[in-house]
């Protein structure tokens, strides 16, 4: 009996050399899980990231944030700026073996145009979009609109991916079930376990462009036979797995786990400057007390960013930046204008303003989300700050799923509505006045909060037709001024997450969206 036990133990130990990532497989841990293969049916960033493996796009941004052809060979723009004639590259193939045709591209763009915010604006200004032959598609605008290429070259959700026409004809609210793209990796559907793992194999018929990779543009060279996106739910476990070489990359290492990387050879934590995120307190303009502009101003005066950032990032002061700019700090449209309103806390002034506005003590209901650590920390800081400035606060403990549902409600708080909630937006969505949801001013047709401003709507229209950078900058600056007066949200800071990267990986592209071509395993 004893000898059997020993034999089993010895056998286990002998076999127990962990599977080190020395094989030609790239193992990734993203922040979320792969639950769908359709990046048009959702704006979820994890789906966006994984979709870049499966699908390819007509145009994409390079590292200078300029639009470059990807599947397109090139584009000709008519002199009046209304007609775009796009030709496809030779030899493009879908994963089901069929050729990519202009018909597929037209159907895919149409579907994207029903779902994506910028896509919808583009299609509302469009006269026609059609395939004139197998390799040529022609987009004709009804009026001049300078955002056509930036729109179909956008690199964040929803990305205008190209899929076969038979799939692209499906309504965008009904997710496509078959992952058929023409991208560098092909999904292995049989090995997909939602909630656990998604597997991709290099697509042998993929023809990368000849230019070197530059962010989303250029040649997508695949150096791995296989990519696995592993959903490791526990972050501490994911860090351990990275440190022993079981995975190669993790999207975000929380600040409190950064010390684990000190003195480690196997992996490093690298600040992902381009993947910056900003956090906001979104304000509902339909419900009291924040239907009153003065009380919204008092809310701005009641808050400041540092305590929120400290609560979320602890002592890691290099992980965040105090920033009142609507389009992120250190970006083309960054500005200081009107930021005093959101950067300087003055509880006394807030109280005085509340008195002046005749604040009647209507409670601000906080739906305190506890299942997302950064949100949990932020709500804990928010409550005392509001109370100190004279607001009456009613706190309810809840989870993100509940808030994500309630925020869509335009009802009074008592009937399932809301006052404020925290959320975050990525750098790439916020720096662009066409995609930043807070400068839309679109009233009840807009994003949650329903801030209303005709001036903001007009500014965006003007922005969309000009290609002059100086004019764009002027319009963006004015947008910021109006936005901070309107208070669709209060910014609470800009956060730069650290990514975990195996030391033996080379050629990883620093970008707002993580890409997994070009990267290879060195020694």
């Amino acid at each position, binding site marked *: 009996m004893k000898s059997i036990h020993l034999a089993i133990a010895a*056998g286990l130990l002998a076999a127990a050399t*962990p*599977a080190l990532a020395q094989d030609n497989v790239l193992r990734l841990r993203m922040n979320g899980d792969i*639950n769908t293969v359709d990046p048009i049916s959702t704006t979820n960033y994890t789906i966006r990231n994984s979709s870049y493996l499966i699908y390819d796009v007509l145009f994409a941004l390079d590292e200078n944030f300029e639009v470059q052809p990807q599947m397109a060979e090139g584009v000709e723009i008519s002199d009046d700026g209304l007609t775009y004639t796009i030709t496809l590259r030779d030899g493009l193939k879908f994963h089901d073996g069929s050729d990519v045709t202009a018909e597929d591209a037209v159907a895919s763009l149409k579907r994207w145009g029903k779902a994506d915010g910028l896509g919808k604006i583009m299609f509302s200004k469009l006269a026609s979009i059609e395939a004139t032959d197998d390799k040529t598609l022609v987009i004709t605008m009804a009026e001049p609109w300078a955002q056509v290429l930036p729109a179909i070259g956008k690199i964040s*959700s929803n990305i205008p991916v190209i899929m076969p026409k038979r799939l692209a004809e499906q309504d965008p609210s009904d997710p496509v079930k078959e992952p058929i793209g023409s991208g560098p990796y092909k999904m292995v559907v049989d090995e997909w376990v939602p909630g656990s793992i998604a597997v991709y194999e290099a697509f042998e018929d993929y023809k990368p462009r000849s230019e070197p990779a530059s962010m989303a543009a250029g040649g997508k060279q695949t150096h791995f036979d296989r990519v696995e996106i*592993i959903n490791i739910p526990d972050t501490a476990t994911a860090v351990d797995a990275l440190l022993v070489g*079981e995975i190669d990359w993790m999207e975000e290492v929380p600040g409190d786990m950064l010390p684990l990387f000190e003195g480690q050879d196997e992996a490093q934590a690298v600040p992902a400057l381009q993947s910056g995120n900003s956090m906001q307190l979104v304000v509902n303009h339909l419900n009291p007390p924040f239907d009153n502009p003065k009380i919204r101003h008092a809310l701005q005066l009641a808050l400041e960013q540092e305590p929120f950032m400290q609560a979320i990032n602890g002592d890691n002061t290099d992980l965040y930046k105090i920033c009142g700019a609507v389009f992120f700090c250190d970006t083309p449209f960054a500005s200081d204008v009107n930021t005093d309103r959101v950067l300087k806390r003055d509880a006394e002034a807030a109280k005085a303003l509340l008195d002046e506005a005749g604040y009647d003590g209507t409670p601000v209901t906080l739906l305190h989300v506890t299942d997302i650590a950064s949100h949990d920390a932020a709500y804990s800081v928010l409550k005392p700050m509001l109370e100190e400035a004279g607001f009456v606060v009613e706190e309810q403990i809840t989870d993100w*799923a*509940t808030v994500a549902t309630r925020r*869509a409600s335009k009802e009074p708080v008592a009937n399932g509505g809301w006052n404020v909630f925290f959320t975050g937006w990525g750098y790439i969505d916020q720096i662009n006045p066409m995609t930043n949801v807070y400068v839309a001013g679109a009233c009840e047709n807009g994003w949650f909060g329903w801030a209303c401003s005709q001036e903001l709507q007009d500014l965006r229209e003007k922005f969309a037709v000009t290609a002059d950078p100086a004019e764009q900058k002027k319009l963006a600056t004015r947008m910021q001024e109006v936005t901070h007066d309107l208070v669709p949200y209060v910014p609470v800071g800009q956060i730069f997450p650290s990514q975990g990267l195996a030391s033996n990986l080379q050629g990883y592209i620093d970008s707002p969206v993580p890409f997994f071509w070009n990267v290879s395993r060195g020694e």
Partner: protein
Amino acid sequence: MILYVVGRLLAAVPTLLIVAIFIFGLVHIAPGDPAILIAGDNANPEQVDKIRERLHLDRSLPVQFGIWFGNAVTGDLGTSVYSGRPVTELIAQRVEPTFLLALYTIVLTVIIAVPLGTIAAWKANGWLDRAIMGFSVAGFSVPVFATSYLLIYVFAVELRWFPVQGYKALSKGPVETLVSLTLPSIALALVFAALIARVTRAAVLDVIHENFVRTLKAKGMGTRRILVTHVLKTAGVPIVTVIGIGLAALIGGVVVTESVFNIPGIGRLTVDAIVRRDYPVVQGIILFFSLTLIAVNLVVDLSYALFDPRVRG
């Protein structure tokens, strides 16, 4: 005997029905709309409405229940709201890791706990008993995630004997599977061993003072033989009951361990489904749990016959 089994199975039907209605109601009472969660952050209300329609979430609750129940009877548990995959497929993918983890843990538990409990009873109130019961209280009190992180740190990060996380399917070779399940099984076994050692001690103590034991001692039989062949067999009923309850708990209730070690089991599927308001999956899993529980209880009841001849009649 067959009549007994059939009767037990039939008795389970109303239980299942009540559980199904109860769970269906409970899941739908919880606030949170799956359509909004699926649509993503910048979806407009119209998109959300379309998704709701597609998932039949716009129908009344009794109608939704009717649709679900009608399909469930034919073995179709619907498709996941979250991933669009059939619920039966999602559960089937998770059954292997969960059952193997439960089995491995129970084997480890029995190997550790039954001898310890028996020894503790035999040396009742001595230092060995105290030591074993002390270990048992500790095993029960230390949270399983703490033990898990400790095991990972020592055996995976420092010694590198076992992987930190992940599950290797049986199809890739049973040895790899065993290796990938060793640390999580040890973490769980420490908790269950504590429980079962205590129950074993109590059960053995009850029997050890019986007259037949004294007779066996008087006849000069060895202690080991008395304990193993006679005492344990007589004390078996409560021990097997607790092991059965443990097995059932292991199949559904090891979310923390599954999360820490990244084992894609049913427990995690359950919690993920609840967080995402994935109604069909939650309902499917509860149905699956109920069936499993009934099956385990049946096996436990039948195994009493091994220990207690009175049950056989």
